Each structure stands twice: as C-alpha cells, then as structure tokens.
C-alpha cells in the first residue's frame, strides 16, 4: 500500500541554525518526486527530518494520514532511506546487510536470507548474497543499499543523491533501476539531487528548493519551460530574461528592439531557454556574438543585443565567429512571461 506525504510549514534548525524555514511539499501516493536545489539549500535536512534523524521545531509531517512527530522515532516511521554513501555494514555479508530491517522485525535467519535474495535479484545483483561487501563497486554497493531499503517494505522511500557516488557511465543503469522499481511497486518516493538534468530525468513531479523553501513544485517540463520566478529560471539554466513593455502583442525591450509575444499589455519579464533561441539569417532581431564555445553536443553562444545579454545553444555544426552579427529567432510560443515578476521588480524599486 502506498501513502502520500504532506510536509507543511516545516522549521528545522540543525545545530541551532535555521535551515528549513517553513517548507511545504506534498507527494501523492505512489508518485516519484524529485527535490532539487543548490548545495546548502536544505534538501538533505528535509530528508533527515522526514526520516526522523533531525528534530522538527515547527510544522507538520504526515505520511498516509499518520503524523510523524517527536513521538514517532525513526525506526517506527516506515520510511526507508538510501544515503549518498551506501553505508553498508563492513562486517556483514551482502544478504545480511540487505536483511537488516527484517532482523530488526524479528524474522528468522533462513527467511531473512531468502527474502534478501529476492530483493537482490530485483536490483540485478542475484548471486552476490554470500559475498562480503568490501569487494563491491560503488554502483553495486548503492544497489545493495537500495535492496536493503526495499526489504523494509516502507511506505515512503527517500533517496539522497543516490547517483552521486557512482561512476558516470553506470549512472544511467542505476537511474533506470530506481524508476523501474518505484513504478513496479507504486512506492511513494522522494529523490534528492543537485543536478538539474538528473532531476528532470527522474521526476514525475519536480520541486525546487532555494534557501530552505520550496519555490516551485510542478511537472518537470513545466518547471523547465514555465518557471515561477527569475530565480527558478536561473537555476534551471533558462538564463535569458528579457524585460520590456508589451503593447498589442509586441514587446518593446528596455534596451531597444521588439519581439512578438503573447499576453496582455503592460510591463513584463519573459524568459526563454537557450535551446529555444535559434540563428535565423533573415530575422529582424539581430545580436552580436561575443563568445562561441563548442560543448560537444551543441555550441554555446554568448550574444549581445544593445544592453541585453543572451545565451543560445545551437547545433554543433554551426560556424560563427565572435564579433559576427547574426539574426535571432526567439519563437513567441517559447517566450514565457514570468508571473508577477514585473510587479516584484517595481515594488522592490519603489
């Protein structure tokens, strides 16, 4: 049975310094949510608070209608965690590591080992049961940690940067495994990462945490394409923010030039992702290339249009030299108007 998670107004201050200041997050039963944010934003603190490893000063934590408060210690929460490092017991066999939660529940050794073998098969490590953990690779150790977490049959699975300690070329396989296992079990899961593309690939619902607060929680595509604020846009790499005044579907930029946009008249701030900006020789909107960097799968162009700086990711075959004037296509359907951004800017300036 899967349970939904509700976090409301959570305040947590490890070591006396407030890290979470009124955090809200909700995950529907059986869904896979990813919490992303820069280092130090408070992601791991939130995970630890949910797991019962960090005391909560204020706020509500609920899992499937059950309150998780100070009276529910970590071992009674039915929450399993996979940490950034596998944290395996060095003196125990692989299957005994996996079966640790069953041992805690009083299950006999034979039954424990049989169930551990099933979990190991589930994570693609059949046959490793009697081995020690010392000879395993980073990826194998992380799979053992995942098998251990599943062995507890939790209501909620927490994964803290599960791919960080794994070789880059093994990450893809582990990512697929996490998605498959989560789907098959319809297990409510919260994954933490600081890597935005990993977040997009893993998430059914994506939440961005900045300075201890969730600033946007939505479908990954929406967070990437339609950010709630300039800070969200910047984190997800949509660094192009175009400000100006809209009249009759035409945005007059603060620094000169016009672009076709959607939406009502008035001041507005629009973002467009670098991948959406294309070179169009005949376009009226022109900019100067200040830097062109070959990045393997694309060429990153830094551009200037008056006082406005733009970034564009264009196909790797594109040949443009710094200093060249190019026409740019900024498709109107890819220009996203930041909600309330202009009002915020005006009120901050007044």
């Amino acid at each position, binding site marked *: 049975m899967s349970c939904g998670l509700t976090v409301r107004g959570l305040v947590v201050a490890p070591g006396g310094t407030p890290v979470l200041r009124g955090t809200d997050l909700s995950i529907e039963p059986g869904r896979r949510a990813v919490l992303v944010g820069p280092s130090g934003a408070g992601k791991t603190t939130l995970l630890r608070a949910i797991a019962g*490893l960090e005391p909560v000063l204020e706020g509500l934590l609920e899992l499937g209608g059950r309150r998780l408060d100070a009276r529910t210690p970590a071992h009674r929460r039915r929450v399993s965690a996979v940490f950034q490092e596998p*944290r395996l017991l060095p*003196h125990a066999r692989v299957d005994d590591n996996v079966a*640790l939660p069953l041992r805690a529940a009083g299950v006999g050794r034979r039954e424990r080992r049989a169930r551990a073998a099933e979990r190991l098969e589930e994570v693609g490590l059949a046959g490793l049961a009697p081995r020690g953990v010392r000879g395993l690779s980073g990826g194998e150790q992380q799979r053992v940690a995942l098998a251990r977490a599943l062995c507890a049959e939790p209501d909620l699975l927490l994964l803290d940067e599960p791919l960080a300690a794994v070789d880059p070329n093994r990450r893809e396989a582990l990512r697929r495994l996490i998605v498959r296992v989560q789907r098959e079990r319809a297990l409510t899961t919260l994954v933490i990462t600081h890597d935005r593309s990993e977040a997009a690939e893993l998430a059914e619902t994506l939440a961005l945490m900045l300075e201890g607060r969730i600033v946007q929680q939505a479908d990954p595509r929406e967070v990437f394409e339609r950010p709630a604020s300039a800070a969200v846009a910047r984190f997800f790499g949509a660094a192009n923010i175009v400000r100006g005044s809209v009249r009759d579907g035409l945005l007059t930029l603060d620094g000169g030039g016009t672009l076709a946009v959607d939406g009502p008249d008035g001041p507005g701030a629009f973002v467009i992702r670098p991948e959406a900006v294309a070179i169009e020789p005949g376009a009226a909107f022109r900019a100067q290339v200040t830097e062109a960097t070959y990045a393997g799968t694309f060429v990153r162009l830094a551009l200037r249009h008056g006082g406005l700086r733009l970034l564009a990711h264009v196909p790797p075959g594109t040949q443009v030299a710094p200093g060249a004037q190019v026409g740019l296509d900024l498709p109107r359907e890819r220009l996203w108007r930041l909600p309330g951004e202009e009002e915020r800017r005006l009120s901050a300036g007044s």
Partner: protein
Amino acid sequence: MLAHLVVVLPYTVLLLLSGFGPDLRGLEEMGRAAGLSGVQLLRWVTLPVARPTVAATALLSFLVSWSQYGTSLAVAPARPTLPVVLLPFVGADPQVAAALALLFLAPAVLALVAAVRAMRPAS
C-alpha cells in the same frame, strides 16, 4: 591500577575517538532509518563496527600498562606488578634472563593474538 589508568587513558581516548568518527555515526543513522531500536543498534551496528578499534585500543593499553615500571614502583611498592617482581632477576644469570624474557613476552604475544582475533569480521 589507578596510576596505570592515568597513563593509559590519553592513548585510549585518542584512539577510540578516531574509531568512533563520522563513519560509525553514518552507519548508526542508517540503522535507525532501517528500523533498528536502540538496543538492536548497539548489538548489530555499533559494537561490531567498533570492534577492531576497541581491540586495537585494548592491545595498546595493555602494552603501555605492561611496560610501566616507574609508576608501579612509585605508587605501590608494597604491591608490585608482575613485571616489577620479575625485574630483579634480570642479569643474575643468562639462562634465567632468557627464561624471563620469554615470560615477559608471553602476555604481550597473547594480548596480540587476542586482539587480532577480535579484529576479524564477526560472521
């Protein structure tokens, strides 16, 4: 015995501190998240993981204590420890000295064997 503790304690504390570092704390957290109660955590995580460090510390403490002559003589000359009792016989006769050397060595070797056995994985 108190005098020996005073000499041995700094070594013991330093060694145990290095063994009970962040790794052990991380494993204890994992244990709590895996559903282990306090007693279970101590029996199945803390003690087995700390075992090699405790064994090495015990060995070193014993060796330091075993080689204490001055402290034993100064504090309790009326109740000498085994090394202090054996000391006057050294130099009397080469054969006695050789036998005593073995006798001196035996407890240290036994302690070493016990410590190495304790450092091995439990299962």
